């Protein structure tokens, strides 16, 4: 009966900077999606989201976003999430230039 679970990452915006952040497996908020924890089952996803929602003094608006496994870690599947990993397309601003 169980539909296949689409893997997820927990993501939010940083309270002070406002930029996109992702929750890592070791409970840190990381600024690159590839360092995030790729969550493979629904129960874990709910638990991780709950943890994130309890960190309102660090991040804002935590939610679960669809993701897939990539070469360097989790990758976005929807274009909105892709833009969040990069920044705007009209200027070289945001993560696309801040990336290490």
């Amino acid at each position, binding site marked *: 009966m169980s539909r296949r679970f689409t893997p997820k990452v927990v993501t939010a*915006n940083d*309270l*002070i*900077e*406002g*930029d*996109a952040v992702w929750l890592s497996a070791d409970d840190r908020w990381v600024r690159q999606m590839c360092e995030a924890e790729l969550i493979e089952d629904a129960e874990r996803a709910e638990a991780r989201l709950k943890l994130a929602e309890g960190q*309102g*003094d660090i991040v*804002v*608006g935590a939610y679960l976003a669809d993701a897939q496994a990539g070469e360097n870690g989790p990758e976005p*599947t*929807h*274009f*909105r999430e892709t*833009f*969040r990993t990069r*920044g*705007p*397309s*009209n*200027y070289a*601003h*945001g*993560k696309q230039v801040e990336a290490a």
Partner: protein
Amino acid sequence: MYKYNDFDEAFVRERVAQFSGQVARRIDGSLSEDEFRPLRLMNGLYLQLHAYMLRVAVPYGTLNSRQMRQFAHIADTYDKGYGHFTTRQNIQFNWPKLRDVPAILSDLADVEMHAIQTSGNTIRNVTSDHFAGAAADEIEDPRPYAELIRQWSTDHPEFQFLPRKFKVAITGAPNDRAVVKAHDIGLRIVRNDAGQVGFEVIVGGGLGRTPMVGKVIRDFLPKEDLLPYLEAIVSVYNLLGRRDNKYKARIKITVHENGIETVRDLVEAEFIQRRELFNGADQALLAEIEPAFAQPDYITADSQGFDDFYKADPVFRSWVDTNLTEHRQPGYAIVTISLKAHGATPGDATSEQMRVMADLAQEFGHDELRVSHEQNIVLPHVHKAHLPAIHARLAAVGLATANVGLVSDIIACPGMDYCALATARSIPIAQQIAERFDELKLEHEVGPLKLKISGCINACGHHHVGHIGILGLDRAGVENYQITLGGDATENAAIGERAGPGFSADAIVPAIERLVLAYLELREGPQETFIDAYRRLGAEPFKAALYPDEAGGRKHAA
């Protein structure tokens, strides 16, 4: 220009102090996001895709050089060196840090500006004709009334928690450049048969999910009744407007569901009561405001130099022919500075460009600038003798594009490059269309054409009232662009009709090109504009150009 009085100054400073405290308490954890969010929205602070965004009100689009320079300073100090001018005649900063916002608001207060009521379910920044006080076709300058409305609506205790946001636009000219019929309340200054000047009051217009052209609720309102009548409308809406469904909460739905007659009866009854309470205090206030909008001290100068330059320099001539509008004062012109260089982001200006525009306003423009809802900057009062110098200095910073009113003078909302609500991007589409028509070297031949792009159904890019409208959608996880045709933002306001199935991001620019080339084939001559040809011929030949494979007569599944 209007100058803050002691009350305005104290009010804005107090709000900066309040919000500074709220930010500090958010950062130290004593306020949760649920508590903080309505507070930050009351101060124009949004959280977008990549950062916070601060929306600053430019009241009815009017500002002076000092204020423009302060925007440049804010852009350099707290942001990434630019600002974005919006269709609401505001400016948005796309990259502020939460910690810096109190300092930004304090810098704004230094030049009599703020971000209050640029968000939330309140009466928003009142917008107006960007040529107000200068246009040759104007009956009366609408800005004293706009300022009166600003003062009345700012912090109005009864109207801080309306069912939904509320937008008022006002024009003093018969040629509507303020899209008044697409606002919750639209005001047109008119002259009645007896020669008296008053307002035509329009209510229930709006774009967004359910676009509607506003309806006339009062065809002639004596000037002195303006505030009591507005207050009557907003208070009727405050009680009657739906709070159960955010998509049905705007006054356009209230008017649609109850009928204009019912709303009018309620408003007129309320108006009788309210008028008693005003006591003439509003008229005293208006009398205080009016001198601030007196005509500038016009100069006289020899414009022989202008005439010679106009004849000699084709680049200058093209700019003059395209970007200037007739001024009421002989020898003067209204200059529209295009923020739409081909390939640039519509509405964006760098700090350097802002400073140049501020300098030009100060040196040659009686210290006035305007933000237009079409995302350009206007120097409303310029003597023609100064135009060659102005053009040269604009050209030096990439601001001399001669395309105002043409196909590349595109309105585009921030879309999914910035906006958290977006369903697709708008900016790259605008950039590509402008670049393509620049390549084709056709836009001057095509002539007046309004192309407007929104990145979601909220329609901040006014796509419904574009001759050509583009709406960006998310179709099964892919950006998709829907075209509407035949919209009109003027006094002949009309909502565009959907042309057919949407186009992919790759196919939308060629589709627009086919559409415009088809118009060139179809028109009776250069005097017949795109919208005129569309009205004469109907949608069919334009749809045939958009969907050539289906031109055999097969109907679209809408």
